[in-house]
């Protein structure tokens, strides 16, 4: 699709925050347009990196779960981990990746809750791995914020 989506989202952000906001008769409407300008800018970022980021996250969680399934003691959780670890994304559409990611994150939540306070070294290492993933995912998702 040309021009690139990001390009005209940024262009529209510029227009919203510039001329259009300046010409509003009141501060409320001007502030609303400036806020939408920022949202457009973040949308441009997500348009470019969104699929890559979500595929990385989903794959990383599956890898973690496949490993966890071999270590976790509780059988029902281990079964769910095994199944999730072997799953795949339905497509590269953002909505499909989100749906799969939500299911995987819900399982990550259950896994971490089960690992907290463990004395077992292998489980403690797994807990550490799960947090390493979560921290890296948060870092990758961070928006390019600038002072306003």
């Amino acid at each position, binding site marked *: 699709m040309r021009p690139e989506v990001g390009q005209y989202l940024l262009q529209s952000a510029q227009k919203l925050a510039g001329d259009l906001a300046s010409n509003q008769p009141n501060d409320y409407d001007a502030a609303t347009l400036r806020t939408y300008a920022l*949202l457009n800018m973040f949308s441009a970022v997500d348009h470019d990196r969104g699929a890559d980021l979500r595929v990385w996250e989903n794959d990383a969680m599956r890898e973690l779960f496949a490993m966890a399934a071999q270590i976790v003691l509780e059988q029902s959780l281990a079964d769910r981990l095994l199944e999730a670890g072997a799953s795949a994304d339905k497509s590269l559409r953002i909505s499909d990746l989100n749906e799969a990611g*939500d299911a995987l*994150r819900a399982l990550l939540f259950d896994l971490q809750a089960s690992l907290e306070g463990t004395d077992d070294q292998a489980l403690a290492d797994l807990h*550490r791995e799960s*947090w390493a993933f*979560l921290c890296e995912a*948060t870092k990758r998702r961070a*928006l390019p*914020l600038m*002072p306003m």
Partner: protein
Amino acid sequence: MIDKDLADKITAYLVHCYPDANDLSVDELSRIHGGASRETYALTANWSQGGETVSKPLIFRRDPTTGLIETERDVEFAAYRAFHGSVPVPEPLFLETDPKWLDRPFFVMERILDGQVGSPFAADNYGDHAAAIGESFWRYLGDIAANQDAVLALAGVLPAVAPNECWSRELDYWENEIDRHELEPQPLVRAAIRWLRANPPPPPAQVTVVHGDYRTGNFLHDGAGDILALLDWEMVHLGDPLEDIAWAIDPMWCWFNRDRPGLMISREEAITIWEQASGLTVDNVALHWWELFSQVKGLAIWITAGETYEKSDNKDAVLAFSSLVCTDIHNQVLAEKMPKLLGMEG
């Protein structure tokens, strides 16, 4: 643009409130950003009375159809009333619950003229006046914590809480908000909640009025070092005064300059001033608990904002911004903190 219908309705209401006013008119009516939990309108009412011309700048705070947080306008109004005269707040004037006037309940208060609002997302708000504003900001928060008369005055509208239940009541409330409004699983905030429950803080020495949203962006200053008004009391409640300190020093409100909470003065200076004004001592273990709680509370608010934007008719851009940007910031804070709290670093 504000429709004429709203201006006419406000005029009719003010005529009702000021029966001795002649030729009352409403000018300069405009919507302003005053928190996404209520619609806020600024205006000036003009009338003549006893041969004198009266000009009164006013704020109308109307309940939304849906908002960022669900709050009671009578509680906020009562808080303004309880603190008016002791710390700088606008004078509360009328509380109206009858929907016949403006379709939804609202209250009216004095409008503070020529006030400036700082942005949490700036690198600097207050320039050379940061120290003076910071001194006032923290002293007023200490004054709020010290004001036991206000606790009594608000006892009729705010539920009582025992010192050892302050933390659990707040955590229960905000966790429930996340349960109700979560659009996607949130492992970071859930882990923080588990940690908070497993490591409760010591109780406060005394239960105080907690503003609930005391921070940069929620007060007006004059641009010359003085705070004119402390605003947005919609989340006021009784509780542990450290909750307000923790919220005010949260990284959200100084993201681009984290050494100066609220973009004012250092954390150490802030706590010293607060302790002097309140006569209370900050327990650092408890404060660290409340700081993590602040991230949970913030995320509950931003999660609710996102759900409101997606699922209701309220498409206020602030809701989308809060959901996107504020969630991102608080998740980054939790990603920094949680591995340390869980003993995974070092």
